[in-house]
């Protein structure tokens, strides 16, 4: 069966520091991969999605970036964090685009 992992589970970072969040999927090949952010009291905002290695589409202009160095690995990065980057970051995968399955999430607090 397929599983999706995210780490770290929680992260506290100072403003201006770099960020790297990792997401990996097991048990499937060539999945579509997605990064979402969930701000407190708000819905989910799609940040990036990828349909293959090296293929990244950005949905919202911001100081975040994403990369897909391997088929089942999706990384969310920032060179300098802002206070507004705080939130709950969720990674998801799908096959054929129908149903997305979500990871456990990473809670990021920027101070």
């Amino acid at each position, binding site marked *: 069966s397929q599983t999706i992992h995210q780490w770290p589970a929680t992260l506290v970072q100072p403003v201006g520091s770099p960020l790297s969040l990792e997401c990996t999927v097991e048990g499937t090949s060539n999945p579509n991969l997605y990064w979402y952010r969930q701000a407190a009291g*708000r819905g989910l905002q799609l940040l990036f*999605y990828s349909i293959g290695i090296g293929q990244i589409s950005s949905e919202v202009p911001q100081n975040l970036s994403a990369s897909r160095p391997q088929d089942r690995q999706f990384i969310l990065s920032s060179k300098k964090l802002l206070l507004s980057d705080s939130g709950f970051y969720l990674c998801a995968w799908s096959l054929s685009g129908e149903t997305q399955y979500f990871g456990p999430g990473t809670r990021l607090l920027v101070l």
Partner: protein
Amino acid sequence: AQSVTQLDSQVPVFEEAPVELRCNYSSSVSVYLFWYVQYPNQGLQLLLKYLSGSTLVESINGFEAEFNKSQTSFHLRKPSVHISDTAEYFCAVSDRASGTYKYIFGTGTRLKVLA
């Protein structure tokens, strides 16, 4: 552009009472519809989905939702809720025509089941 509206941000209901969580979307052209549940500090779990076929779909824990194309709605219902159903529920729509299968999420409804 597609949009999803969950009008109720919070719904309190007593245990064993029925509940309906509302979801409306802007366009009924070629969509997939989903309900997800999120427990505190966890990711989203798929509750049920409509892809095609019967407009009434059910989950294993007693929830059901009906795709209503004319009203562009996909409301979630349960005839008798339990304390354990307390969670946040998100409705999502995927535009099949776009080819990207990106989801548009509603802002969520927090269901609070009272003893």
